[in-house]
């Protein structure tokens, strides 16, 4: 089967530590999905998972690239960062596990729910991480007949 062309492609940089602009990328994706006319419940899961991943780059990494490809019946999202990587992925997925420093917790983040929430919201989640190099998060979201 030939690879289907995406309807919309998006590529944006994410700057680590930039809390002023944190969320801009997921917000832009939200607008794109809304304009494309996907059901709100579907958009919600794509946007929540993207925002969690975007915030992880802002909070834990140095810089990253966010790519989204929107097809008629699915959305593919990749977030590729340069950063410390995740030494123990299984541990990182545990709810409540977080290495976020106090100033991040004061903002309301760092409860250690992000990765499990990304898993919950996406249909496929693959993480490739290398310590002291970076982390790549790939997520796929399929529009199901039940409209979410």
């Amino acid at each position, binding site marked *: 089967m030939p690879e289907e062309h995406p309807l919309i492609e998006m590529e944006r940089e994410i700057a680590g530590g930039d*809390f002023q602009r944190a969320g801009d990328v997921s917000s832009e994706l939200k607008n794109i999905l809304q304009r494309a006319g996907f059901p709100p419940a579907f958009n919600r899961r794509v946007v929540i998972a993207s925002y969690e991943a975007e915030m992880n780059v802002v909070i834990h990494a140095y810089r990253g690239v966010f790519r989204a490809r929107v097809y008629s019946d699915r959305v593919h999202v990749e977030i590729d960062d340069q950063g410390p990587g995740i030494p123990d992925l299984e541990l990182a997925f545990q709810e409540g596990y977080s290495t976020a420093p106090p100033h991040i917790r004061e903002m*309301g983040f760092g409860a250690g729910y992000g990765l*499990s929430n990304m898993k919950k919201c996406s249909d496929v989640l693959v993480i490739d991480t290398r310590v002291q190099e970076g982390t790549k998060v790939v997520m796929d979201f399929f529009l199901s007949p039940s409209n979410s």
Partner: protein
Amino acid sequence: MTLREIKEILEAEVLVGEEFLDREIWYACGSDLLSDVLAFAKEHALLLTGLTNSQVIRTAEMIDLLGIVFVRGKRPEHSTIELAALKGIPLLTTRLPMYESCGRLYLKGLKGCSEFGSNA
């Protein structure tokens, strides 16, 4: 219940978004943990929080929150209020602390966002 009713119950002041006071709110959650809000909030929900940074507005945008109430008289910076105006998210502030704010709304029948129990 509408945001307007919530404003009265909490004796709250509207910081921005007067035009949205007729929005119908189905659920509320009271939290200072945005991670929790992102993981558990439902649709048609209101957030009560003591946090006033701009990520509260961002989080609200991502999960389509219908409004935010800052408790204990907290007020965000002007730039945060502007961001909420841009995103169409009404902001209210009440002098009541978190527990009392949630308690008053709950007594009036506004359900929680929790996935557990009878309102699941």
